[in-house]
């Protein structure tokens, strides 16, 4: 075995820094994104998520292994790609995080307060929800996105999500469409996909939850909606509430059919 001496430049070590780039260096951004995806820590977060899925917790001292994510108790393969969907036992449409929360409460006997104490983590430590989301989502790699759209409550949720997407409110009179409603626009240097059109929604729904390289954080769709509303100058959405699920269903259904690529890597 040859001894290999490597310098920091040669080793595939991720390094971040605020990079200010002009319009014509878009190619460099794409190259950077590819390099970053190659050495992403996402799969390592999935390992941690797997450990948490199997860990006995709560007053009932139970793991989440019997959690039914829509395809049967404990069935993980493809489950994420079929969310959000209606669940009879809760009589509501749920996204991944709402369903995980449901299982933490019903299977593990935990309270909503305790289970949602720290739903959004940071660069030092992801939240339990974030690790679990990485793990569960990773089990849908290659499966076509197919959220529930047959049940009346699923269709009602889709319609509510769609209406909300275009509804202007808040201190700055913004709707989602204020930024995501016109082709070819960007906010600062961040391109804005036209999320109500399938060709734009598809690559987006196929890559969430995601690792954001610039701040070393792993983020879920609940966080993404929360952060949008913060910047839109609204009050704060309730975690895993019906309206947040409705929006996620609207976006996922718009991107329906796209093979899920696994948790993504973003700027």
């Amino acid at each position, binding site marked *: 075995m040859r001894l290999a001496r490597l310098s920091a430049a040669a080793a595939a070590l991720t390094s971040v820094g605020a990079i200010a780039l002009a319009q014509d260096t878009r190619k460099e951004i794409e190259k950077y994104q590819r390099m970053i995806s190659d050495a992403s820590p996402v799969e390592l977060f999935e390992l941690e998520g797997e450990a948490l899925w199997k860990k006995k917790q709560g007053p009932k001292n139970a793991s989440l292994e019997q959690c039914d994510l829509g395809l049967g108790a404990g069935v993980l393969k493809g489950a994420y790609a079929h969310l959000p969907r209606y669940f009879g036992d809760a009589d509501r449409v749920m996204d991944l995080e709402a369903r995980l929360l449901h299982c933490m409460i019903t299977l593990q006997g935990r309270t909503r307060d305790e289970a949602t104490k720290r739903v959004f983590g940071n660069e030092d430590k992801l939240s339990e929800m974030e690790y679990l989301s990485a793990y569960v989502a990773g089990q849908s790699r290659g499966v076509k996105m197919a959220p529930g759209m047959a049940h009346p409550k699923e269709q009602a949720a889709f*319609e*509510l999500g769609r*209406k909300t997407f275009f509804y202007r409110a*808040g201190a700055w*009179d913004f709707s989602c469409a204020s930024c995501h409603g016109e082709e070819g626009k*960007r906010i600062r240097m961040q391109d804005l996909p036209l999320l109500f*059109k399938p060709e734009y929604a598809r690559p987006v729904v196929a890559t969430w939850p995601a690792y954001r390289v610039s701040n070393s954080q792993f983020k879920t769709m609940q966080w993404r909606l929360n952060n949008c509303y913060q910047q839109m*100058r609204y009050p*704060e*959405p309730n975690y895993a509430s019906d309206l947040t699920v409705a929006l996620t269903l609207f976006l996922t259904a718009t991107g329906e059919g796209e093979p899920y690529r696994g948790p993504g890597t973003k700027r």
Partner: protein
Amino acid sequence: MIRSTLSGTLLALAACTSVTIGEPPKLSERDLDEVYSALKRDFHARGIATMSRIEPDAAQRICNLHRDNPPAELAKPIEEAQLKAIQFPAGDLLGDWKRGQRIAESGIGMQWTDKPGPGGGSCYNCHQLSPQQESHGTLGPSLLAFGKVRGKGPEMQRYAYGKIFNAKAYNLCSQMPRMGHSGTLSEQQIKDLVAYLLDPASPVNR
């Protein structure tokens, strides 16, 4: 053979009750009520972001009902009412363009994570302004050489001030936030932005 035709028929029936994808909806009064109720139920106040922010006003209501393109007879009265409500300061409306630049660059203020009081204008989120700042958005029109092209006379100062204070007084369904009307920016801050736009010494005009 029969089995596959049957499942094909069932799939077709499922598709018949399908929803519209790819098109913005036409919202009715009832739709507005439904979304408003959902917002009230599923949002909560945090920090300076209170629930009063989701109470609809006339401008939001008309724009929501008409996909941001209302008939003139509905839009005009509301635009005029908003124009009347703009508090124009007395005297010169040109502030300090150097302060204006900082306000234009700043993206904080008015969020539930921010402290109370004036924050930034977030102007570069949507607009090009100074030619040196490449990191700008394209949601709004470019404001490059704004003052150079239009001059800095009192009429233009008033127009720029008014637009920043309440863009919807000029175009009811503009996507531009109402920076003065919403309490985002103070009178002095808007004057500083007017200077950033109109002052010949400002980088916007050089």
